[in-house]
């Protein structure tokens, strides 16, 4: 299987220091926040790779680096063999960029309220001087809206309909990869079902590849071919949905899955997880999960575990087996 996307040792550090003068006056050092730390994975063509993790785990930062909205501090994102931050041939970069689109969580904020839907949907093609005649109308029908909607403004649509408009826009440039950042988190379940079904259909129809970002484990299980679990910017486990849900191998994955509410968990007494996610500016040494890990040993405090293969999954834990 060829990988459409190859992410290698990806790291992103944000400088969250106070302004220089405050630092000097208050005698504070620079504060660096590592949002993504040495993450590597591949997304095969026509597959859905999902990233899950709690708030601040680095999901969106990875998504933004993949579409080129953010530059990596270290490591690389290769799409179709082109390393987007090192390639010098502008034409190749442009060609790859137009193969990647992004859909965001908030269908209200991501549509320009002054533009007609026709112009919004056709924008990615118009920006490159392509032919947009009838394009928006065709795409709107493909996402289950009507060609007549092209003449309306975003405020005339419900949340689910707006997300369809975002999807239509993402499809306009005939991309091969769509990065979907919490595409249904703002939607009600019945509308979420409509959007998820649509995304599955379009994937089959156009041979799309998705990087699907979500904090909702059931949604991820439903959509993904492969799931990557993030904790504090690190990839801690990568597995198929079945392997992850039947037999999570990383202690954090185990904790997360045990904590997630179950629709058939009537009266279940959960032994809730202990502690909170640590401060990303001063992450724990060694394995970042060690202060909360029920099985941590001395080695975990000093040595960061590498991802290693265990029965078809990859796990970053010294003790997992």
């Amino acid at each position: 299987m060829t990988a459409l996307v190859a992410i290698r040792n990806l790291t992103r550090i944000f400088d969250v220091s106070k302004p220089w003068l405050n630092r000097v006056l208050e005698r504070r050092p620079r504060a660096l926040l590592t949002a993504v730390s040495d993450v590597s994975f591949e997304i095969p063509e026509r597959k859905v790779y999902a990233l899950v993790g709690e708030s601040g785990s680095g999901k969106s930062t990875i998504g933004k680096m993949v579409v080129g909205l953010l530059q990596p501090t270290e490591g690389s994102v290769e799409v179709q063999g082109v390393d987007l931050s090192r390639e010098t041939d502008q034409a190749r970069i442009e060609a790859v960029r137009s193969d990647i689109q992004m859909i965001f969580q908030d269908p209200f904020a991501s549509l320009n309220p002054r533009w007609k839907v026709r112009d919004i949907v056709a924008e990615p093609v118009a920006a490159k001087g392509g032919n947009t005649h009838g394009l928006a109308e065709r795409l709107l029908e493909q996402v289950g809206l009507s060609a007549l909607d092209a003449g309306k403004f975003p405020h005339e649509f419900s949340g689910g309909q707006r997300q369809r408009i975002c999807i239509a826009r993402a499809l306009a440039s005939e991309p091969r990869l769509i990065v979907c950042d919490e595409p249904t988190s703002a939607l009600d379940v019945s509308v979420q079902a409509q959007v998820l079904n649509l995304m599955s259909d379009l994937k089959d129809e156009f041979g799309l590849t998705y990087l699907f970002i979500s904090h909702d484990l059931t949604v991820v299980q439903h959509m993904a071919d492969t799931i990557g679990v993030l904790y504090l910017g690190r990839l801690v486990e990568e597995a198929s949905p079945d392997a992850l849900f039947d037999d999570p191998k990383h202690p954090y994955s185990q904790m997360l899955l045990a904590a997630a509410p179950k629709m058939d968990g009537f009266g279940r007494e959960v032994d809730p997880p202990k502690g909170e996610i640590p401060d990303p500016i001063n992450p724990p040494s060694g394995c970042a999960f060690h202060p909360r890990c029920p099985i941590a040993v001395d080695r975990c405090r000093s040595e960061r575990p590498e991802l290693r293969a265990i029965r078809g999954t990859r796990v970053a834990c010294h003790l997992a087996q």
Partner: protein
Amino acid sequence: MTPPVLSVRDLVVDIPTRDTTLRPVDQVSYDIAEGEILGVVGESGAGKSMTGNAVIGLLDRPAHISGGEILLNDRRIDNLPYEQMRRVRGKEIGMVFQDPLTSLNPLLPIGDQLTETMLEHLGIDRGEAQERAIAALEEVGIPAARERINSYPHEFSGGMRQRVVIALALCAEPSLVIADEPTTALDVSVQAQIIALLKRLCRERGTAVMLVTHDMGVIAEAADRVAVMYAGRLAELGPVRDVLTAPHHPYTDGLMGSTPLASKGKHRLHQIPGAMPRLGDLPDGCAFNPRCPKAQDRCRANPTPTLADCNGRAACWYPLRTDDAHDMRIASA
């Protein structure tokens, strides 16, 4: 039989607007018994918060109660003067909202907020209130409570703040807690901590709880009974396992089918066509009829039935029998 802690009867809330009157809550009736958790679910705009706010007497003008009654421990509270209702809210009803900062005073240390509430409602002295405040914070899992009692709300994480709010909601020993989306803004692991905490405290004290959420999983794990709301009305009401595994109302059935289900793996999600109507734009007849696969002429010709019009379980002229509800899948999973 002991009377329910909360009894809501035929509650109607109206919002007069320039050209019409909107009705976000329409003939809603339910009871909550001592120690019972009633889950209230439904999609955005269903009227869940309005129902809760009507109970605690905090409807934003111009919304107001225009029908029905609300009884707390057998006493009517929907018609109390403002000052009296304010005391009921502090003493007998605890509140937990989605954003903990709405319940906390940003300028006051958390310990003072707890002691003030207890001083006002419990008739104890300051020293004892102080000790009880520390105990309350320890009980909700604030580490080093004695040292942190002088901290301000902004010095806590979101999950810790929500714990403080729960301590505050329960410190005057109320008989009813209204929790409106208490974990919606929180991560899965923090949500599990907060829900476990709420369940434990309420069970230990026999507090009645109205738990509003749109998360069916949270409802399944926490609630004893569940009320499903649609367009301002109760669509279905019953024991949580019965309603979720064998819904009688077509809307509940649709909701369950559209929720991705872990045990089902990859499957096509059931779709309810369309979206919930806006209040000013309700269809004639049963409010669900344009989206309902079972709708008949009768549903378009008659107003939405109430639970009492039907079998007490589902507000529907043609309830699904358990055998044709396609959601036996949970029970068999």
